[in-house]
């Protein structure tokens, strides 16, 4: 596995920061926006040029989103010791996810769209698939390649699709994940919806004021159980389910039908009961709507929900990357048998009374659920189990 977020540029650094309850949400520094000072974000404080040099990816037309993806991808490859031959083999799938893609270059895109000739170097890089396509080209990958965009559940669905490719014999291994970088486009979009907080977000708190956007990328290498041999294994993906809330383009239904169905479906697919889940890595964006609805759905399914928390209080909402980043966090939970504290929590939501984990805890964990819910009602839950 590999990841990069506002609290670290590797899985190890992320684990350390999570354990210490570090928050990477701060003032925007790397690109100009009217909201740089008023809307804090989970920004990775490494400039795009420096990232490009570090990764030896200085060809024209590469966007920040692609660089973040490459960073996480390379760590995952190194960690899993995949060979060049394995990477370029017919039976290695690559499933990426992004919602911003090359749209992080908002101004360049706007300029290009006014031109009649001499497009910029980014002319073929604006769409979401350009991120996956760069990885495919760089590593000459020849298996099934896809890019998924189901808004904020995109990379959870990338993980699910990759797992199903393996299960159905269409791939021997799948490298799955997602990437998104901060963009004026998303900052203004979420701001127009009035769901961005001017302070650090407070998931599941009664007085929560909205979400903070973040950026990052994560990739996971999935392999079949029979191919494991003596390779390093973090956990087993035992359950997944995708369901649509079918209610509203940008908010969840009051009763949380979609979240309930995706969590329930994931349990059924893993052949587990609610009592088997030891921790829920909640979607927990910190918005009025999400946290209340997710709490209701957890109460409905679990009656007494297991310990839960949202790492969005550490890194912000990384949109299309969130499902994959939080999947890596779930793997860390399981592998090291520990829970990381949700930050900035003080008062439970009056209606539900649910309190997220707010202390670093050593524990015994067998199954962890990770939730991702997106615009358009796209809800996906994954279950990882100790192998």
């Amino acid at each position, binding site marked *: 596995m590999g990841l990069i977020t506002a609290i670290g540029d590797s899985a190890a650094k992320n684990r350390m920061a999570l354990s210490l309850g570090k928050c990477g949400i701060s003032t925007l520094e790397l690109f100009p926006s*009217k*909201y740089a000072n008023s809307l804090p974000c989970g920004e990775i404080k490494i400039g795009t040029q420096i990232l490009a040099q570090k990764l030896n990816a200085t060809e024209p037309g590469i966007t920040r989103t692609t660089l973040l993806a490459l960073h996480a991808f390379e760590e995952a490859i190194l960690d899993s010791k995949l060979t060049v031959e394995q990477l370029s083999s017919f039976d290695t799938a690559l499933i990426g996810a992004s*919602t911003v893609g090359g*749209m992080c270059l*908002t*101004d360049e895109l*706007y300029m*290009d*769209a*006014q*031109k*009649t*000739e001499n*497009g910029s170097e980014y*002319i*073929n890089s604006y*769409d*979401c*698939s350009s991120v*996956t*396509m760069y990885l*495919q*080209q760089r590593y000459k*990958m*020849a298996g*099934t*390649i*896809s*890019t*998924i*965009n*189901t*808004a904020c559940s995109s990379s959870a*669905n990338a993980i699910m*699709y990759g797992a*199903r*490719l393996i299960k*159905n014999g*269409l791939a021997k291994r799948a490298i799955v994940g997602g990437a998104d970088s901060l963009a*004026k*486009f998303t900052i*203004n*979009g979420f*701001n*127009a*919806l009035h769901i961005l907080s001017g302070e650090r977000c407070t998931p599941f708190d009664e007085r929560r004021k909205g979400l903070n956007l973040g950026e990052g990328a994560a990739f996971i290498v999935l392999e079949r159980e029979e191919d494991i041999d003596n390779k390093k294994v973090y956990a087993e993906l035992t359950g997944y389910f*995708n*369901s*649509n*809330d*079918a*209610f509203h*383009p940008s908010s969840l239904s009051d009763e949380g*039908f979609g979240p309930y*169905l995706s969590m329930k479906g994931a349990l059924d697919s893993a052949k587990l009961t609610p009592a088997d889940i030891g921790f829920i890595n909640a979607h927990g964006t910190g918005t009025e709507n999400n946290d209340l609805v997710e709490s209701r759905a957890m109460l409905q399914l679990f009656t007494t929900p297991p310990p839960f928390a949202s790492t969005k209080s550490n890194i912000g909402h990384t949109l299309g990357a969130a499902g994959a980043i939080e999947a890596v966090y779930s793997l860390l939970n399981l592998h090291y048998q520990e829970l990381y504290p949700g930050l900035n929590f003080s008062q439970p939501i009056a209606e539900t009374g649910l309190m997220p984990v707010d202390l670093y805890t050593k524990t015994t964990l067998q199954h962890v659920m990770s939730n991702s819910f*997106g*615009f*358009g*009602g*796209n809800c996906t839950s994954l279950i990882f189990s100790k192998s």
Partner: protein
Amino acid sequence: MPMFYIHQTSCISPQQTFDSVDISVLHQPVEHKLKVIEPVATGIPMGTLRRMSKAVRMGVMAALPLLQDGTEPAGIIIGTANAGMEDCFYFLKQMVDYNEGLLTPGNFVQSTPNALASQLSMLKQNHGYNITHVHLGLAFENAMTDAGMMIKENPRNNYLLGAVDDIPSYNYILNSLAGWFKKEPFALEDLYTLQTPGSIAGEGTAMFLVNGNPEDAIAQLRAVETIHTEEEEAVKQRLKYFLEKNLINGEEIDVLITGENGDSRLLHYYLACEEMMPHTTGIARFKHMCGEYPTATAMALWLGCYILQKNPVPSHIIKKSFSKKNCKTILIYNNYKGGQHSFILLSVPGCF
């Protein structure tokens, strides 16, 4: 075992493919673009319709006839590269025009490519599997693979499978800047003979109701194969492997539908695949009907089903003639921008 059986099809394209299908007469491009003939929108609440972008609107209109009579698919599986892009640019423009000021969120909410799949789930109160593949020229191929896996996992379920892409004006500009459309004016009839770089911009949507039941099916989708490469030899090798793997002993392709699009830089891929077919195989083309866009293979699949149903085949699609009576197996080969290639194999149901 085929991947799935196709039971119903629906297509909105620049030709008369919706309602009463008549593709004998070619509709011509407008301002160098092959634009869809949009049907009058019915069956969508006015408030919802008003907020829909063109891509979402035409996708919904194409899908609705397949969801009548209480048909409730267990999932909605969409491939698209551009759906949402129109709203994306409207929002971008708002943002620049008002210097990141007070903006209305409508365009932003509709700007995500999953707008079509989610809009369909909302209209039909469908809580099933809901996914949007956006991998450019292979978005629809991945949607087909996904649907195939879903049906293998849940053989009794119906799924709505489809694709949509339109030509938002900004997207047309970007693709023109990148040299993907011919700059010179030309007659549609000359698309394949000009031998110049670039194709013609197009758009369209096709929807399919698919399941694992061969009874009364229109066609069986036997296999899909994709490859990313710019090497002609690698494409040929993959085609050889695909045919060896999927054709039954002695079986031949009756018709090869190619995505030949008039771009002189891409022609060699199509000719290479044509040369690998036996002399009995007929060849058909379709990009003069719908233009070039990332999910054009959905239109090709619709056309394949149309041919397998023994409908009248217009001469304008024929590059090399074939026996319409005995057409049982069709291969579709397409490439998008030279780097993304796909092979799709379909047959009449029950013959293999």
